[in-house]
Each structure stands twice: as structure tokens, then as C-alpha cells.
């Protein structure tokens, strides 16, 4: 547990220093939620500001989780720090995932803060605050289903030479199947069956139910957590195998 805590602390330290040293990155981070808001609004105009708020944060968080963990692996390779990350007492996949978790939380918080003035303008302060906190809770929870998958994408990204290939098709497919971009109910039957096996789908359902005050959010949340456990275990196992292969072939240097 101590090892894991060290990795979380290191991740938080890296993120804080990176944002302090890179004002451009910070500015982009604050602007992106508005772009996502415009996108979600243009896809479906029947929602409420609260639903757009949550949908925008979920959209960005889902994209970032997959992209950023793989991106961290690519950055480590590009900067030549990959061997040194591998040499720490934790496994490479643990380093990549656990140092990312604080980044995800900090960035989600910043994105929510950036977008929250809209909510406070439209809704009463207590209601707006409730939506912000609920969205943050759900978005933070939303990382769980993506951890194992992101770990696998990161390992695969290191194993293959065509780095961008994975990232270009994996994230849009995941977002489509999970109903982040398009309602799952409108998709063909076989795609719906596939999407029901993705934990993010159930998390999106739980979020929608919670926001609209519908019943069934607890069952969706339970399904999301159970499927997350399965996905993360499978992702962890597969990425360990990929890591072992990299270790054998010299792919970590």
C-alpha cells in the first residue's frame, strides 16, 4: 500500500509542477470543457444544462483517461525516461496508472471549476453546487472502469511501433459503445449487446438516472463497478504479459 501511495504522491507532484511551469497547458485545460459543451449540445438539444455539464465532463474524462495513460507511456519513451520509470520498485503499469490518477482528479476538478460559472448563472447556488459535486463524484468514479483498459492500451502502445494507431480508433469506439456520444438505445441490437459489457455504459446510465431523479441508478452503478473489476483484472493481467514481453525483447529501453 505504501508503494501505491508513493506513486499517487509522485503523480500529484508531477501534475502540480507541470501546470505551474506550463501556463499554456493550463489555459487549454480550462477552455476544453466549453468545446465539449458545444459538441454535446449540438449532438442532442433536448437536454438540460445540468445534463450537458455532466456529459461534457464525462466526455472529456473518458477521452483523457485512455489518451493520457497511453500518452504518458509515449512521453516516457520520447523523453527517454521509460527505462527509469521501469527501474523503480513498482511495475511499469502501476507507475503509469497510479501516477496518472492524481492528474485525472486534479484536471477533472479544474474542468468542473472552469465550466461551473454557467451552472451558477442558470441555477440557484445550492442546486448548482449539488450538480458540480455530483458530477465530480461521478467523473472520478468514471476512472475506475477505464483503468484496466487504459493500462492495456498503454502497454499495447509501447509494444507496437505505430503508436498513434491504437489511440486513433480505440477512444471513439469506446465513447460510441458507452453511449457518451450517442444514446445506446438508438444503436443496433448487436452493438447494444456489446455496449452492455462495457462498464462505462452503466456508469453513464447511472449518471443520467441520478441527474433526472429516475430510479435504477443504484443497479446501474453496481453493474458498472462489478464490470470495472472484471475489466481491470483482465487489463492488469494482459498488460503484465505485454510488459513481460517488452522486458524480454528490450522494449523498455
Amino acid at each position: 500500500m505504501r508503494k501505491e501511495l508513493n506513486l499517487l504522491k509522485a503523480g500529484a507532484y508531477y501534475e502540480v509542477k507541470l501546470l505551474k511551469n506550463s501556463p499554456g497547458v493550463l489555459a487549454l485545460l480550462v477552455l476544453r470543457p466549453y468545446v465539449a459543451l458545444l459538441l454535446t449540445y449540438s449532438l442532442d438539444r433536448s437536454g438540460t444544462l445540468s445534463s450537458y455539464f455532466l456529459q461534457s465532463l464525462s466526455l472529456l474524462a473518458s477521452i483523457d483517461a485512455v489518451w493520457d495513460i497511453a500518452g504518458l507511456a509515449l512521453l516516457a519513451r520520447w523523453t527517454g525516461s521509460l527505462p527509469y520509470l521501469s527501474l523503480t520498485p513498482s511495475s511499469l503499469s502501476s507507475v503509469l496508472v497510479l501516477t496518472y490518477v492524481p492528474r485525472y482528479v486534479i484536471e477533472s476538478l479544474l474542468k468542473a471549476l472552469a465550466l461551473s460559472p454557467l451552472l451558477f448563472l442558470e441555477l440557484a447556488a445550492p442546486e448548482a453546487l449539488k450538480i458540480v459535486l455530483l458530477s465530480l463524484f461521478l467523473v472520478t468514479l468514471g476512472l475506475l472502469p477505464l483503468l484496466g483498459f487504459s493500462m492495456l492500451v498503454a502497454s499495447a502502445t509501447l509494444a507496437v511501433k505505430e503508436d498513434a494507431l491504437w489511440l486513433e480508433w480505440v477512444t471513439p469506439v469506446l465513447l460510441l459503445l458507452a453511449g457518451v456520444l450517442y444514446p445506446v438505445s438508438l444503436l443496433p441490437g448487436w452493438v447494444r449487446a456489446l455496449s452492455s459489457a462495457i462498464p462505462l455504459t452503466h456508469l453513464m446510465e447511472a449518471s443520467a438516472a441520478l441527474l433526472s431523479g429516475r430510479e435504477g441508478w443504484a443497479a446501474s452503478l453496481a453493474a458498472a463497478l462489478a464490470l470495472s473489476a472484471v475489466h481491470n483484472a483482465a487489463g492488469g493481467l494482459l498488460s503484465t504479459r505485454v510488459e513481460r514481453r517488452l522486458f524480454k525483447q528490450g522494449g523498455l529501453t
Partner: protein
Amino acid sequence: MLAIVARELRKSYVVRTRKGLLTWEKKVVEALKGVSLTVKKGEILGVLGHSGAGKSTFVKILATLLLPDSGEAEILGLDLVRERDEVRRIIGVSLSVEKGFFPRLTARENLKYFGMLYGLSGRELDRRVKEALEALSLQKHADKMYEELSLGMKARLSIARALLHDPEVLILDEPTLGLDPVTARRVRALLVNLARSQGKTILLTTHNMAEAEAVCDRVAIMSEGRIIAVDSVEGLRRRVSGTVFLELRLPSWESSQAISLLKRMPEVTVSAVHKGAQADRVLISAPLSGADEALINILRALRSSGYKVRGVSLREPTLEDVFIELVGAR
């Protein structure tokens, strides 16, 4: 006591070359062909070899970054494969002097980040970072972005990181590659100090013969995936003690013809040719017993064929001569 033990390490890579749109040609390259080596505690051992000799593969295996196909290796009694995590706590590694850090963090922030990954925290982390920066004379540059550091500073920062968790064994791949002479000398002095005053064991690879002579207690010469000699610099020199080295300076426009003539002389061996703008330096080895006679014969042969000689010197064998004798003969 032995700090590093390697027994019969072997490693092959499969290299795939694209032949057509969907066809590949596979080729197996043997990088290590049974490398055995021991390094004593507190010793500095240099691994010397041409590019492609297998030095980096050997270092990566010792650094636990690459799995050998066969053979065994231990660091301070810990098996590199079975006890990999424990080994990683007692080794400090530097693989590149120009890369390996995050460009948008400062030197200090990078060290702190890697220190945290090693489990250091609070005052202990601050103290270690401060000590490492001081040891490498980097205090003044600690708050500069990594991307703004010079190559020499980056090289020192890489060694600082390797020292951060106070490892007993340092594994350094070309620690002075690309550095200016002053910085390189400073890094060498630091390595000697680490071994002598702190008892650290250091294994380093280098192309630089002068560096190996100046820093290393023993030198292992590697060629084509094998270690072909391991000894102290003096011991290696003695291997060619029956040989004397003549260095001729020949005008560059006619040196190739002159060298052809020298190569036909049975009593001498042309070991190396260093090209120059005005004159080429031709290194010739000859048996010590017949050195005078060989020199006279060389000068006579060159003169009678009309070739000019700009200078002649006769000297004791250096590590470079030993290297050329051993590797060049293979």
C-alpha cells in the same frame, strides 16, 4: 567480496526487415555470446568495445531492463531475474546523458519526482535531492527547466538521479559521451571519488580509452558479443609488452601507397591509420627485440620508393594499442 557476477550470459534479437508490402525477412542477431564477468565491491570496471560489440545489451541485462536468453547474473548476491525488485533497490542506473527526464520540469523537480517513485518523501527526499545536486555541482542550475540545461548538466543530472536512493552499485552506459573535456574530467573525478570514499561499485561502458585508463581499476574488452580480455590497464599492457609501437606521419596524398608497401613487409604489422588533413598517422607494431632493425628497414623501404616521412615516434603500448591488437586481430 564480489558485487557483480555474470555467468555465460547470452542474448539474441530477432531483427525483421520489410521485404515487400506484407513480407518480412527475419534475422537472428546474437548480441551476447556467453559473457562471464565479475566485479569486486568498490571496484570501477570499464567495459570497452566498438559500437555493436554488445556493451549496451550487457549493461541493460545488469540493469534489469532486459531478460537474458540464458545464463545467470547476480548483484550483491541477488539474482537479476528472480529477485529483480530487490536488485533495483541497490543499483543506480544511467543509460543516456542527453535524455531521460521530463522537459517541462526543472532539474530539482525531476529529481524529486524520481525520488518519490523510489519511495523517498519529506525531509529525507529534500536532503537526498540537495546532496545529489551538490555532489554533481548542480545547485546553481537546479531550478532551470530540464530542456534549458546544457548537455554537461544533463549528464550530471543523470548521475545525480542514479545516486538519489544511495545505491551500492552504479551501472553507467557511456557516462561522458558527448561531454566537453572539462565536464568529462569532472564526471570522471566524481566517479573515482564515489568508489574510493563511499565504496560504490561502478560498472561503466566507454569508447574512450583515455577515460578507461584514468578511471578504471580493471578493463574488460568486448568484441562481437564476447569478453576477450579482462585485466588492469597495466595487465593488459603487459599482454603486448613484447611489442613496440612506431607511429609514422606520412603526407596524406601518398599515404595509401606507402601503407600498401608497409603491409608487404613481413616483420611489421600496420595496426591502425588515423587520417589527417595534411598527414596521416600510421601505427605499426613490431616485435620489441627487432624494433631498431624494423625501423631502419621501414625508413629505408619508404625512402627508396620515394615516399616522404614527416615524423617518426616510438612509444610504449597504450590501452588503445592493446584494444586494437586484441580486437583488430579477431
